[in-house]
Each structure stands twice: as structure tokens, then as C-alpha cells.
């Protein structure tokens, strides 16, 4: 129950999805925050009205605003932007809110792509005037249908275009709802809005050195977004590792649920609402074929540390465990402090 209270104190991050119709906004939102599977994305329905969802995550209270592509942002009067959607507002808070804008462009649609850039420019200007505290990201989405050459061409084209906008440092990511790229890109968006991020990264760097860990992620158990990773150089296998790490969370969380359900029914407590089974004392190890071991440590009931460890490093398992525990304690303390 204490957990609940401290969650209430979390800071709010507002995610605003913009972009032309059919660009993939709703798909992205549901894929990441509602567990939509890649095979189900064909069933996503068109968005008619502004839709706002809130969700509690390990790192923040997320408010997700899905703006229908059939509407035009410039036609929504700015003095209604802070109002809730039920009052025809956008619900994106005032000029001090932590706002992360994601502009989604369908990179497979050469036609609307140019128009999208014009609209993007207009929207960025409006939003910048409204809230000086925002971050702005472009997702070049649906990259799954394109080859690398085409992707690079579109990326460079967009880049040269936004250079004219000249400002807050708009970032472009290539994404697809079919694979892990969307989680990677969204993680980076979130990271920009987490004040502790730099500190977390520092600690992760320190920890992987001391514990002889090859790569580490701090991940939200529910969405599998990572709020920090160490800064060891990105190999091209990195997305694979990240995907396997998210898969591992999914599996051990699932198995924990199965046995938490079993335990409750054994003690005759099956009527109670089953609490999320992942717990802060969770510890699991998966040995992979290539002499790699994945280690997952619960930090809180929705935050996990996932480490990629080479098997030979396990010779010094004691030192590793000591360092992981130390790290766990440090993060817990930091999280507690930032919430009071």
C-alpha cells in the first residue's frame, strides 16, 4: 500500500501524439502502453476525437494524448488546450507542463509525407509558443516496408527540412510497430523527461564496471520501456539484446503471475484481486546459448534492472551480486527521495 502512495507523488509526463491520419499514432500508443501485439495492429480503428489515457509507470505518471489526424491542431483554440478532453480541450496542461510531443509520419506514404512536413512545422511553432518546456520528436514510422536506402533518403530529407525550424533540437527516429524500434525510440523520448536520467546512467556505468556486466537496462516492467541504460557503445546486436531482455521480463512476470495465482488458491485466498506478481525482491537468471546470462533484478514492483552478463564473469558471482544489490539500494533511495 505504501507503494501506491509514493506512486501518487510521481511527476506527470504528458505525451502528445500528432501527425496525419493513418500515420500510426494510435497503433504506437496501444502497442507500447496497452500491450497490443504486432499481429493485431490491423484492427486499430481510426481516431475521431481527442483521446486521453493516463497510466502509472515506474518512472512517471503518463498522460497520453492521441490527437486525431483528421483534425487540424491550428483549428483548436489555444486557450482550450489546457482543458480536459471532455470540455473539447487537449488536456496538455499549461506552459510549465512536462510535455513530450511526438510527431508521427508514415514513411511509406510518399504522397502525404511532404504535406506532413508543412503541418509539422506549423504545429511545432504553435506548441513552442504555448509551452517552452516541451521536447519534440519525429517518428519516421512504418519503416518495416522500406529498405535501408529509402529510409536514409527520407531521414536526410526530413533532417534538412527541420534544420529550417532551427530550435529545441528536434530528434528524428525511424520506427515500426512491428519490431523493437518503436520501444527504443519511445524510451529515448521518455528519458529526456526524467530528471534523474543522467544520474541513473552514471550509476549504471559505475555498476557495470564494478560488477563486470556487459550491458544493463533499467526497465519499466509493464511497458518494457527503458528509462536508462549504460553508455557502453551501441553494437548492432543491441536491439536484439534489448528485445530478448523485454522478452525475458514478459516471461518471468508471466510465470510469477501463474504461481502467485497458484499460491493464493492454495491458501484459499483466490477471491482476492491478484496483485501484480512482479515484486521488488524478484531475481531471475536465464542462461542463453552463447555463454551469455541475463539477470533480472526487481527494484520496485514495476521497475527492473536487466543485466547482460558473460558467463565467465559469473566466476565472481559474489562480487557481482554485491554490486547489483548496492545498485538496487541506491536506486530505491533515489526514487524515494524524488517522490517526497
Amino acid at each position, binding site marked *: 500500500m505504501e507503494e501506491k502512495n509514493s506512486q501518487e507523488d510521481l511527476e506527470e509526463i504528458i505525451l502528445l501524439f500528432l501527425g496525419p491520419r493513418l500515420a500510426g499514432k494510435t497503433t504506437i500508443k496501444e502497442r507500447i502502453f496497452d500491450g497490443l501485439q504486432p499481429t493485431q495492429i490491423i484492427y486499430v480503428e481510426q481516431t475521431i476525437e481527442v483521446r486521453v489515457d493516463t497510466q502509472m509507470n515506474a518512472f512517471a505518471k503518463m498522460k497520453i494524448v492521441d490527437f486525431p489526424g483528421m483534425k487540424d491542431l491550428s483549428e483548436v483554440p489555444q486557450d482550450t488546450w489546457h482543458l480536459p478532453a471532455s470540455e473539447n480541450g487537449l488536456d496538455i496542461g499549461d506552459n510549465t507542463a512536462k510535455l513530450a510531443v511526438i510527431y508521427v509520419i508514415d514513411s511509406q506514404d510518399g504522397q502525404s509525407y511532404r504535406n506532413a512536413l508543412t503541418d509539422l512545422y506549423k504545429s511545432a511553432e504553435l506548441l513552442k509558443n504555448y509551452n517552452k518546456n516541451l521536447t519534440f520528436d519525429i517518428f519516421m514510422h512504418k519503416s518495416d516496408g522500406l529498405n535501408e536506402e529509402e529510409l536514409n533518403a527520407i531521414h536526410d530529407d526530413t533532417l534538412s527540412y527541420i534544420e529550417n525550424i532551427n530550435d529545441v533540437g528536434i530528434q528524428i527516429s525511424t520506427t515500426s510497430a512491428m519490431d523493437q524500434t518503436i520501444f527504443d525510440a519511445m524510451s529515448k523520448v521518455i528519458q529526456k523527461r526524467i530528471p534523474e536520467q543522467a544520474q541513473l546512467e552514471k550509476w549504471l556505468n559505475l555498476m557495470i564496471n564494478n560488477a563486470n556486466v556487459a550491458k544493463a537496462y533499467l526497465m519499466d516492467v509493464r511497458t518494457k520501456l527503458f528509462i536508462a541504460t549504460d553508455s557502453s557503445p551501441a553494437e548492432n546486436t543491441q536491439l*536484439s539484446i534489448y528485445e530478448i531482455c523485454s*522478452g525475458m521480463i514478459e516471461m518471468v512476470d*508471466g*510465470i510469477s503471475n501463474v504461481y502467485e495465482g497458484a*499460491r493464493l488458491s492454495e491458501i484459499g485466498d483466490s477471491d482476492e484481486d491478484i496483485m501484480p506478481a512482479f515484486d521488488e*525482491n524478484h531475481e531471475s537468471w536465464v542462461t542463453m546459448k*552463447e555463454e551469455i546470462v541475463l539477470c533480472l533484478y526487481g527494484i520496485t514492483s514495476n521497475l527492473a534492472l536487466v543485466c547482460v552478463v558473460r558467463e565467465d564473469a559469473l566466476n565472481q558471482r559474489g562480487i557481482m551480486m554485491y554490486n547489483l544489490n548496492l545498485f538496487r539500494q541506491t536506486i530505491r533511495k533515489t526514487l524515494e527521495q524524488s517522490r517526497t
Partner: protein
Amino acid sequence: MSSKKVERKKVLLMGKSGAGKTSMRSIIFASYVADDVYRLGMTMDIEHAHVRMLGNLVVNLWDCGGQDSFMDSYFMFQKEQIFKGCEVLIYVIDVKSERPEADLQGYRDCLAAIADYSANAKIFVLVHKMDLLLESEKNAIFEVKKKELEEIAHTNRLNVDIAKTSIWDKTLYSAWSKIVTQLIPKKEKFQTELQNLAEQSGANEVLLFEKATMLNICYIKNDANGHKTEDDEDLIAERMEGLSHYLKNFKLICWRKATNFESLEIRTSTFSAIMQIFTDYTCIMLVSFNPDIPMWNWRKAIDRIRPKFQKLDQKNRRAQQY
């Protein structure tokens, strides 16, 4: 080594076109989970799938259309080839079929043929797509179907095991677990050894999974340390389905990334679990509601009994990895 030693076991998966065989096979054996089913086209042609399981089992898929003229020729000219030496026959019936009579005719033909060529085969009938029925009518409709199917079997002096299934819930895993378990030689020995292991290791549960499908093939519950025995079959089936599902999904992710995993250990505030590749064709899992159980103890216990099991499935042995 020598292919002579490989004793292939034939499993026939039959049913009218559209009954759901391909969907089922894809979920159980290959790299699909239920959401992917719409991707599969209808089996237009006869599909002759060879799926390998437990090293030497080959699953053959056949459409028994009834309306398909080529089907007649199968039964006429290839009867012996298809039905001879068959270990298991699985017949799939679409519960909402538009032509139930044709289904039954296909079923009759299959049973007659199996009675002629493999009278000892174990027969499973899956009344499939149960999700299309209302919850309230499920049982009644199933019972009627079951009776009908049993009567046809009895006229051929055969016994059939009838289950309701759907690709959208746990019933598919449960039914197939039963089928796969049926195919495992010397089950009784497995059971006793694993019971011993449970007692010695202090585990509350010991489970075996078939390695390629992650289907549960053995479930041992140990009540020695005072846990209530309340073997609610549905609850256990649900648990096994959950485990198969999660283990398999992770396995698929690994496959897609050209890797695989060999063991898993979990410890939470309320339970401990270990899962390891056990023999060539199986994985073993130990679970305890005591979170402080020493894992190294379990690892040792597993290593100790592994050779016995390796011997047990020596007969099935084959120099191949899945």
C-alpha cells in the same frame, strides 16, 4: 547414428478442410502464436507436414474433405500407405461446420481405415472452434457431439478420446498435452523418478515439458511438506497452459534472434523455480513456495537423475537437435 535405429512414429492429423488443423499445428509446433492465425491461408492442397517431436515422431496432416474428389482417391488407392503403422490419429471437427454430415463421413472413413490398418492406434477427436459457441450452450452441444462420435467409433470397435478445443484458449494446450503424453514411452518410470525427486528436493511441483513444443507432459505434486492436496484439474490445466505459453513465447523471441535459452531460475518473495533443458527432448521444472530454497541443491538433484532419464529416452535417441 544409423538411420535404421530411428523408429518413426506416425501421427495423423485429419479433418475436413477448414476444420482448423493448420492453425492448430502452427500454434503447437511452429513459430506462431494464436494472433498469427489469420496469416495462414486455407489449406487448399493436401498438406503433408512433417513436424518432429520427441526426436522421432512425425506428424502428418491430411485434409479429409468428403466433398473433395481427390480425397476419394486417397482412400481408394493410398489407404494402406496412409494408415499403416499409425500410432495416433487426431481427427478435428469444426463444431460450427456448415456441412456436419460431410465431416462425419470423413470421420467414418478414417475410423474404418484405421481399424483395418492400425487397430491399436490411439484416437483423439477434437471438437474444435468451441469459442464460436455461447458459454451457456457449450456443454450441451459438446455432449451431443460426443455421443454421436463415440457411437460411430464403437461400430468400428474403437475407443476414442474426445475433447473440446479452441485456438483462443487453454483447451488447445491441454488437449495436445494429453496427446503428446500418450506418445511417451515408459511414462510410469518417469512418474516414479520424478516423485522421488520432488520428495528429495523439497519441491512442491515437478514438471516436464516436451522441448520443441513446451507442452507439459508430466505433472508431479508433492504434498510432503504440508500443502493441501486440492487437485483441481482445471486449475492445473490453466497453470500449465500459462507456463507453456510464456516459455514458448520467449523461446520464439530467441529463435527469431537466432539464439536459444538453456535454463531459467526465478526467485521472488513467494516462490522459487528452476527450469533446465533436461534430456534431448525434455525440459524439467521445479517449483517451491519456499522462496529460500537453495538453488544449487536443485541443480545438483537434477544433474543426479538426468542420466537415468537419458537412458529412458535412449530408444528414441537420434543425433539431432530441434
